[in-house]
């Protein structure tokens, strides 16, 4: 397939992209506010502090919040993928077993590895990776294996 548009990075998001090189999905948190933050920021948008930011590992599992199948490519790099599903996915924010166990962040992605026309709001998905040219990986999602 044609290579995708490659996302730029910022100082704030470098740890996210570094983790994708190892195919790990990490989420920024403010420990003071017990708040997952997306997209990554220089400061917590609730308390405006830079001092309590940390990164936590997500399970990579998520739920489709909204989905739209693109029947025309948004740009030439996507032309050979039509039709493809673009979704907003609520991804486990890595809140662990405590008070914030169910916390999620909402991110845009593609749902791959299935018929795009069959993707529905509420579907359970899990993260997969598509390589970018510089060793980073782009997070995409596929239908999750059924839980035991």
């Amino acid at each position, binding site marked *: 397939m044609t290579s995708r*548009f490659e996302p730029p990075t910022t100082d704030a998001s470098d740890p996210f992209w570094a983790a994708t090189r190892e195919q790990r999905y990490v989420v920024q948190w403010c420990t003071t506010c017990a708040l997952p933050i997306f997209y990554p920021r220089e400061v917590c948008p609730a308390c405006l502090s830079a001092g309590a930011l940390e990164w936590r590992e997500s399970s990579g599992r998520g739920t489709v919040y*909204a*989905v*739209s199948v693109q*029947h025309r490519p948004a740009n030439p790099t996507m032309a050979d993928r039509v039709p493809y599903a673009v979704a907003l996915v609520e991804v486990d924010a890595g809140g662990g077993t405590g008070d914030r166990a169910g916390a999620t962040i909402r991110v*845009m992605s*593609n749902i791959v590895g299935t018929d795009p026309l069959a993707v529905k709001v509420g579907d359970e998905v899990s993260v997969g990776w598509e390589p970018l040219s510089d060793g980073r990986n782009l997070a995409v999602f596929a239908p999750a294996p059924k839980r035991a």
Partner: protein
Amino acid sequence: MRGNAAIVGVTDAVSPTGELELTGRALEAQMVRDVLDDAGLSLSDIDGVCHHGSSLQFAEYLGITPTFTDSTNTGGSVFEVYLEHAAAAINAGLAECVLVVFAQTPRAGRTAAKRRGESPPQRGRPMMPGPNPMAEWEVPYGLQGPVGSYALAASRHMAEYGTTPEQLATIAVKTREWASLNPRAKSRDPLTVDDVLASDMVASPLHKLDCCLVTDGAGAFIVTSAERARSLRRPPVYVLGAATAHDHMMISQMPDLTTTPGAISGPKAFAMAGIKAADVDVLMGYDSFTITQLLHFEDLGFCAKGEGGPFVESTDIGPGGALPTNTNGGGLSYTHPGMYGMFLIVEAVRQLRGDCGERQVDGAEIAVAHGSGMVLSCMSTSVLGTEATL
């Protein structure tokens, strides 16, 4: 602020082919001549300028020296924002006569590029200065802009509330009925729900006929004090209420895809005007897509959240109906040059003046122009009324 400022001049330029001959400053200058003529004012009366590009460049071009200036850019809702700012500025004594001008010619631009042997300007996401989270977190996934963002909102609304493609299509059909009464509208042929559903799927669940037109277009309006307005040529249309709210820039950051910031701006503007939804005679809602207008019905309080689908089935929003909506034919069938909010205000004023001919809503006293900017990002609500509503 209620009733202290009034719109005293309006004009717009559209074309049945969707393409205008004039472009750029030449087209803007034509709009300025026309709007001054409509108001019975001259250029030397203008002491405030609003322009979504650069108010400095625009004023320089026409030799205007304004003491109130505004180049806010919230996308297509910015003309409602300018009206709010102009009314506030006039109320505070910062200016007396504020000119708002707009011209955008995507079609003529392509034709002109072809004539010069250049490659046509690429359509794409607006270039934003500074950090660009959209390039980092959205663009790699290939969501078509802007339709894909609205499609995601429609997807969520359908999943959460059971809204159907037929209900969305009903909005396009009713809006087309208005366009059939407007000789200046681009698309006037009768339309059925089946036509909408049979048109190409662009970004599910939105079909081609769920989407607005892409045309050239231009317009202008002038706002002045209520006192001065009464001495001018045409019946003043008073600003009874105005409010703006925004809660995201890109769709993946929208807090709830089924509720727009119109749920804040609408009630605030209605409260300033002292009206309820039931008092609205004409609703001009920014219909970039059918889902956009459906969300407006809910967020402005014409029905409860989630009930926009059943609402458009039970309430006639077309000619002769209970809630005349987008009486010019809307962005769906009249014109849509990219930033459509100008035309909401122009049509609202024409309805309140009684200038609308075959599509005139009898006895219209209160009209609402509700702009939507970017991807459901910035909503701005203007409540307008005749002398009788003061």
